[in-house]
């Protein structure tokens, strides 16, 4: 009923509502499928799909810059990274028995209930007079036209008004690159380590491994590790 009422509302048009509802429904389907999925390849792909559908949804909500970035990063780079990491790791995840998921379910239900509690007081979707849309955010449109004079307000806010945030963002990306270099190295040899705690020489191959994992060491390495 109320959907038809909403459709009759002059500010919403039927296509907008249908697009919104169907994209959100798609997101829910993908997210729920992710919960059930056990193949890591499927998980990585669904995560990419989730980002891509989100990007489409961002376009329908006028966030074109965000959509562009989400499509390039979430659906593109993230998926490539997760795939390449998965290739170096495993193909399947072992299922977790339901009784061990109960705690997680409780936490999630509590947090979700807290947020749902607030929904009633949230401004209506698309409300032009909501506090968020009537104050600082909207000022940027007039200010950009006057003080920066470039058409893309998002770029102006990103690079100038909140340029310090963006500096932080560049540093975050830099530290991610630095971290990956420190952890993996660019040439694939950084995973090898050795140390001499307590005067006892150990390296990554001689350290005790999981009892359940298959031992990939050669007999030479075993002898070296136990020596």
């Amino acid at each position, binding site marked *: 009923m109320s959907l038809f009422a*909403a459709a009759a509302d002059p500010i919403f048009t039927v296509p907008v509502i249908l697009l919104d509802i169907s994209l959100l429904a798609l997101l829910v389907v993908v997210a729920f499928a992710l919960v059930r999925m056990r193949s890591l390849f499927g998980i990585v792909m669904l995560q990419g799909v989730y980002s891509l559908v989100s990007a489409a949804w961002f376009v329908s909500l006028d966030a074109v810059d965000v959509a562009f970035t989400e499509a390039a990063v979430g659906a593109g780079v993230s998926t490539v990274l997760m795939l390449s990491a998965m290739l170096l790791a495993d193909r399947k995840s072992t299922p977790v028995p339901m009784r061990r998921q109960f705690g997680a379910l409780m936490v999630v239900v509590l*947090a979700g209930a807290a947020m749902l509690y607030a929904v009633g007081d949230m401004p209506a979707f698309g409300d032009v007079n909501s506090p968020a849309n009537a104050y600082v955010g909207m000022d940027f449109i007039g200010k950009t036209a006057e003080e920066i004079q470039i058409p893309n307000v998002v770029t102006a806010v990103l690079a100038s008004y909140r340029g310090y945030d963006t500096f932080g963002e560049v540093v975050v990306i830099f530290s991610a690159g630095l971290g990956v270099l420190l952890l993996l190295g660019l040439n694939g040899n950084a995973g090898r380590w050795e140390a001499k705690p307590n005067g006892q020489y150990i390296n990554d191959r001689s350290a005790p491994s999981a009892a359940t*994992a298959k031992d990939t060491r050669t007999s030479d390495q075993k002898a070296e590790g136990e020596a």
Partner: protein
Amino acid sequence: MSDLFSQYNYIIVIILMMTGLYIVFASRNLIKKLAGLSVFQTSVFLLYITIAKVSGGQPPILLEDKGYGTDKDGHALLEGTIQTAAGGGSYILPGPGSDVLYSNPLPHVLILTAIVVGVATLSIGLALTVRIREVYHTIEEDEIEAADFVYNLEGTAD
């Protein structure tokens, strides 16, 4: 009225956030946890963008006033609404007597930053996963904990 629809987005976004969080908490596989974290963060982006939407608005990219105003093709909906900025910039701005509405750019900017932070966290998490896989030969948390338990016992034996 349209109460259900006006809050519909928030409810779905909250469900999505909690689904992502559930994946992080409930799964014991390192890569699946990271995928869940990614879904959780993406859903928070949805929340911010929902806040920013102005109904009837358009992307916050200012329309230029080309000087030939209302009769330009495709700009028919702007008829009689052109306003120029006080500083002489020739952009069509919202305001009294103007039909043009832009969506709120500020949450867009915040989410651009947050997306970058998300991919940075993800890459570090994946790098750690790869290292853990190399050292522990598994990416299942239960097996890692078991291995650490054995390691603790062996460590105290000498």
